[in-house]
C-alpha cells in the first residue's frame, strides 16, 4: 500500500518567495474563473475587470483599513499573542471616534476634531484589547477565545447604541447616529472613498513598526517571545510587560482604523457588523499573508484590497450575493496561501 509521508525541505529564499507569488497568481486566476462562472460574465471580461481593480486608485480605501490593522496584529502575532479581536477593536474605535465627534465640543473644532477623534478611537481600541490581555497575562485565560467572543459583544454594543441612546434625530427608519460635524470629517479624494491623510499615516506606521521590530531590543525580544518566553525572561526582560505592550499596540491600531472609517467613510456610526464587515478578521489573514513582516504586509494588503475591489466591482444581483461571493473568494485564496506555505516548507514523499 502506498503511504504518504511529509518531510521538511529548505528552499532558498528566492524560490520560496517565487512560490508565494506563483500561488497568489494561480489563486487569483481561480478566483477570476469562479467569479466569471458565478456572475455569468465571460472569463476575459472578468479578467480585465480584475486587472483594473488592481490599478484602481480605490484600492487605497481598503489598504487604509488592512494595512494599519495588520501591522498592529503583526506586532501581537510576532509575540505569539493570538489577538483575534481586531474586528471588535475596530468597532469600538469607531464608537470612540463618534463619541468625540458628535457628543463633545471638540468635534466642532477645525483641525483638533479629527486628531482628537482618532486619538480617542485608538485609546478605546487599546482599552478593549487590554481586557483580554490582562485576562491572559494575569489570570491565564486563553486570549484567542476571549478576543473572538469580544468581537460579538462589540457588535451588539454598537448596535445597541445606534438603535437606542445614540440614534439620530433625522435618520427616519435607519439605525444610525446623526452625521458627524463637518469639522470632524476628513476630506476624501474627489471621486474616491479614501483620504490621503490616513494612507500617509499608514505608510508612516510601516516604517515605525519595521524599525521597532527589527532594530530595537524591545522589538527583538518581542519576536523572541514566540519561540521562548523563558529565554526572554532569562535575558532580563519582563515578558509580561512586552506582551502587554504588543497587545495594546495592536488594539490601538485597530481602534484608529475604526475611527478613520467613521471620519472618512461612514461619517456617522452605523451598526458594528457594518462598520467592521469582517475586515478585522480579514486583516488577521493579511498579517500572516505578509509573513508578519511590515514590508510583506504592504504587499499583502494591496493584494487583498484589490480582491475586495474586484468582488465589489463585479457585484451582480443582490448585495447579499456579492458579499457571499467576496467571502468565498477571499477565504479560498487565504486557504491557497496556506498551501503555498506548505509547499515552500515541506514535500510529500510517497512510499
Amino acid at each position, binding site marked *: 500500500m502506498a503511504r504518504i509521508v511529509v518531510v521538511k525541505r529548505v528552499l532558498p529564499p528566492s524560490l520560496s518567495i517565487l512560490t508565494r507569488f506563483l500561488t497568489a497568481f494561480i489563486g487569483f486566476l481561480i478566483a477570476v474563473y469562479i467569479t466569471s462562472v458565478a456572475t455569468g460574465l465571460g472569463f476575459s471580461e472578468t479578467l480585465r475587470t480584475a486587472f483594473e481593480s488592481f490599478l484602481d486608485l480605490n484600492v487605497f480605501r481598503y489598504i487604509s483599513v488592512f494595512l494599519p490593522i495588520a501591522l498592529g496584529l503583526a506586532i501581537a502575532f510576532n509575540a505569539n499573542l493570538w489577538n483575534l479581536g481586531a474586528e471588535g477593536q475596530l468597532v469600538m474605535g469607531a464608537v470612540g471616534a463618534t463619541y468625540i465627534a458628535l457628543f463633545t465640543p471638540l468635534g466642532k473644532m477645525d483641525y483638533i476634531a479629527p486628531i482628537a477623534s482618532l486619538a480617542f478611537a485608538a485609546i478605546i481600541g487599546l482599552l478593549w484589547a487590554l481586557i483580554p490581555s490582562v*485576562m491572559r497575562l494575569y489570570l*491565564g*485565560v486563553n486570549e484567542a477565545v476571549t478576543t473572538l467572543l469580544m468581537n460579538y459583544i462589540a457588535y451588539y454594543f454598537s448596535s445597541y447604541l445606534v438603535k437606542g441612546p445614540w440614534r439620530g434625530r433625522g435618520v427616519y427608519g435607519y439605525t444610525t447616529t446623526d452625521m458627524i460635524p463637518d469639522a470632524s470629517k476628513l476630506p476624501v479624494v474627489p471621486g474616491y472613498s479614501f483620504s490621503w491623510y490616513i494612507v500617509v499615516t499608514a505608510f508612516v506606521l510601516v516604517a515605525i513598526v519595521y524599525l521597532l521590530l527589527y532594530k530595537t531590543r524591545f522589538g527583538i525580544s518581542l519576536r523572541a517571545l514566540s519561540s521562548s518566553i523563558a529565554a526572554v525572561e532569562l535575558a532580563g526582560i519582563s515578558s509580561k510587560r512586552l506582551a502587554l505592550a504588543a497587545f495594546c499596540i495592536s488594539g490601538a491600531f485597530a481602534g484608529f482604523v475604526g475611527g478613520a472609517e467613521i471620519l472618512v467613510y461612514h461619517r456617522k456610526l452605523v451598526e458594528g457588523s457594518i462598520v467592521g464587515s469582517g475586515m478585522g478578521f480579514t486583516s488577521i489573514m493579511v498579517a500572516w499573508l505578509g509573513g508578519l513582516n511590515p514590508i510583506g504586509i504592504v504587499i499583502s494588503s494591496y493584494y487583498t484590497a484589490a480582491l475586495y475591489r474586484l468582488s465589489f466591482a463585479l457585484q451582480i444581483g443582490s448585495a447579499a450575493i456579492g458579499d457571499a461571493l*467576496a*467571502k468565498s473568494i477571499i477565504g479560498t485564496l487565504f486557504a491557497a496561501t496556506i498551501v503555498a506555505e506548505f509547499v515552500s516548507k515541506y514535500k510529500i514523499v510517497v512510499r
Partner: protein
Amino acid sequence: MVEPILTILADPLAIALTLWILGDIVVERSGVINLAIDGIITFSIAVTFVAVQNIGYVQGLLISLASTIALSLIFATFINVLHAPHVLTGLSLNIAFYGVGALIGLRYMKSRSLVPIGIGKPILALIGVATAVLTWFTLYRSRLGTEIRACGFNPRAAEAAGVRVWRTRYIATIIGYTLVSIGSYIYTTIYRSGWSQYTGMGYGFLAITLAMASSWHPLIAYPIAIAFGYLYTSSYALQLLYGVPTDVVNALPFMVSLAVVVIVYATPLSKKVAMPKALGEVYFREERAA
C-alpha cells in the same frame, strides 16, 4: 414537576448546542483547535435548510451529513497533511465556508421558512443525554477514545506507542462533525425553521468556548449546554417582559460564556482541568526533539 424539567432538557436549541459542543470536544481532544467549526456550522445550516426545502427531511439530513463531513475532511487535511497552523486554517476556511454556504442558500432557497419537524420531547431529551453518555464512553472507555485523547495530550508519545496520529485525528474529525451536522439539522428543522444569510454565525465560537469551560469533558459539557439553552430561551422572555433591548439580550450568551471561562481558568478550578496539552501544536513527526 416532570414537565418543566423535560421542557428544559428537550429544548431544541439546547440539544443543538449539546451536539455542537460534544462534536467540538471530540475534535479538540485529538489536539486540533477547532475554529473552523463556526464556518462549518453556518454552512451546514444553510445546506440543511435548502436540502430539506427542495428534497425532503430524510434526504436533507443525509445531504447535510455528507457535505459537512466533506468540509471537515478539508479542514483535517490542512491540519494533518499540510501542517498548517490551526488558528489560521480555521479562520481562512471560516471565511470561505460562510461565503459558500450563503451562496448555496441564496441560490436554492424557495422561501424564508420551512415546516418544522414535530418530534416528541422525550425523544429530543433522550438524544441529548444519549449522545453525551456515548461520547463520554467512546472517549474514556474505548480503544479509539484512548487514542484520540493520547493525540491531544502528546502526539509524539502517542505515535511512539504505535498510534497513527493522522488517521486518529481524521477519525475524530469525522465523528465530531457527524455530531455537529446533526446539531445543525436539529437547529434548522426544529428550532429555527427559517434561514437568512449567515444564520448560525457565532454559535461555533460559542461551542468552542463552552467546550473549553467544560474542560473538554462530555459529562460536564452536557449540563452547561442545557443551562445555556435555557438561558437563551429565558433571555427572550426578559426582552418581552421587561423591555431589555434586543442587543443586550443577544450579547448576553457571549458575556456569560466569557465569564464562565474566566471563572474556570482564573480560579483553582483550572488545576483540575485535564486539558489536551498539545491543543494547537503543529505536529510534525520528524521534528528533532532537543
